[in-house]
């Protein structure tokens, strides 16, 4: 029988530890497929975060480093500066990137580090049990916003893709989603483009992927996909927020 699908060699055979309905596994596969399709297997060095993806170094079948909470862009900077031919990526969640690691991501973008960040936004801290994140929606119930995020005392969500688009050094920033097949296909295209830009020696790139957390949202996997679409996309509109490559080629940014 003809083989119609094969798991990418860029993922190990270790079973994912992710909860049912969490889209980390999907995004891991997309990243891994892009690395393989670009022929960068032996040149890729990934940096895992602190958070649900902390064990990413067990899953990506390439050299990996585990960073301290929020520091992945600094670690990736160190790697890329001494190993400029490598494809260097960080894989970070919203607590890691948008809270404790806000300085590191902004300055990696400002320096236009030739690295790529895959940013998973699921509007909550997953690993530690469902606390409020900078990306938590107004009114969203979490274990540290039990009455719903109060914009008076707990502020409003941080829109990372829009914020980083204002940083002069950022080269390519796009927000995609993982809640259905067409959006998953778009996510893969964005990740591949970000990697290609890095391989061409252009600047800093980041793909923000809206993702689910059924366990901490208290929803079923299917309900989670709907919740993301209904609630997260209005706050976090999908699309390119910055693409200097497209601008150079005369396209609309």
């Amino acid at each position: 029988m003809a083989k119609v699908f094969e798991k990418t060699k860029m993922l190990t055979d270790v079973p994912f530890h992710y909860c049912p309905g969490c889209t980390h596994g999907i995004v891991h596969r997309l990243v891994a497929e892009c690395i393989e399709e670009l022929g960068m297997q032996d040149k890729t060095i990934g940096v895992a975060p602190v958070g649900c993806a902390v064990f990413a170094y067990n899953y990506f079948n390439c050299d990996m480093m585990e960073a301290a909470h929020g520091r992945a862009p600094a670690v990736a900077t160190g790697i890329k500066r001494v190993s400029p031919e490598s494809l260097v990526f960080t894989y970070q969640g919203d607590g890691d990137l948008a809270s404790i690691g806000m300085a590191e991501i902004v300055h990696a973008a400002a320096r236009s580090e030739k690295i790529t960040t895959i940013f998973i936004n699921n509007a909550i801290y997953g690993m530690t049990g469902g606390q409020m994140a900078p990306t938590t929606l107004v009114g969203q119930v979490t274990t540290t916003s039990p009455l719903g995020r109060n914009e008076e005392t707990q502020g409003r969500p941080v829109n990372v893709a829009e914020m980083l688009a204002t940083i002069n050094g950022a080269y390519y920033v796009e927000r995609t989603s993982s809640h259905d097949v067409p959006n998953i296909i778009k996510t893969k295209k964005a990740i591949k483009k970000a990697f290609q830009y890095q391989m061409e020696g252009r600047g800093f790139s980041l793909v923000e992927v809206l993702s689910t957390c059924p366990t901490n949202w208290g929803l079923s996997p299917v309900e989670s996909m709907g919740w993301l679409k209904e609630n997260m996309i209005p706050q976090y509109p999908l699309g390119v927020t910055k693409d200097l490559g497209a601008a150079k080629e005369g396209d609309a940014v």
Partner: protein
Amino acid sequence: MAKELMKGNEAIAEAAVKAGCKAFFGYPITPQNQIPEYMSRRMPQIGGAFVQAESEVAAINMVYGAAGAGARVMTSSSSPGISLKQEGISYIACAELPCVIVNIVRSGPGLGGILPSQGDYFQATRGGGHGDYRLIVLAPASVQEAADLVMDGFDLADKYRIPVMVLGDGMIGQMMEPVEFQERPAVELPEKDWAATGWDGKSRDRAIVNSLYIEADVMSEVNKKLKAKYDEIEKNEVRVQNFMTDDADYVIVAFGTIARIAKNAVLKAREQGIKVGLVRPITLWPFPADAVDKISRQVKGMLVVEMNQGQMLEDVRLASEGRVPVAFYGTTGGIIPAPDDIVAELVKMKEGK
């Protein structure tokens, strides 16, 4: 090579270049600014990397990345900045990455002052960050020795896969002295087959640079492995210098620039008929406990002199096990003791006051 007149900070930076350092990550803080300034000029000349990081936190994590990718890498800072680096140093210690960290110590706590101090002895020799680990800590007493210890530091770091701290103070960093960068014999060092450099799937195992071990027995094995390494370092790498101790009735124990002042105090005290010697630890960790133990069996008393309120004092008391009185003289805030002040303390000690 001819001797050059150099500022301590610049000599430290050039020594790193001579030792094959290929990346430097830093952040401005007085009194160590000449190190990153020098590196920003020098690194591009040798095809190395220089980044002025957004913070000391970022700088030490850049060190983690570059060291994890197999490069010789250094960072430098001064006390408040070193506090910020402690998180990263703890991760580097657990991931067993080699690197050199320079601390040009200023007075504290808090923002403190920019004048010289030795107040970071505890932080340097007890690990400094969270968890159960050690750094090799080297304490130079001259600009020449600072340069030599930086070069040795890179070899020690690679040999044991451990972060090495060069603990200077504002005086070492800012004063100018003649320095010579000597040709050094090549040292045989282990191959960095653990580094993340891109994996071809066959020539070695996949590299995972990591400090996370959530299973108790696995974490415990990592701790035991680190301890075995620290034991080995304690056995092999202690450095100490004795001065006029052979016939001494008393000894001063002092490190770094203060040991130079103490040396003058030794000579002055001998003019007054007090037979004094000096024990100068060069490695603060591993601490030369055997040398202190030995001298404590010979003398009537020991005087520890530090630019702090008594930190190495504890190690001297531990090593001498109460055999003789151990007195202390310390200055703080950037006040530097004069030889006569130290002699006065020796006289008091001799008179049993």
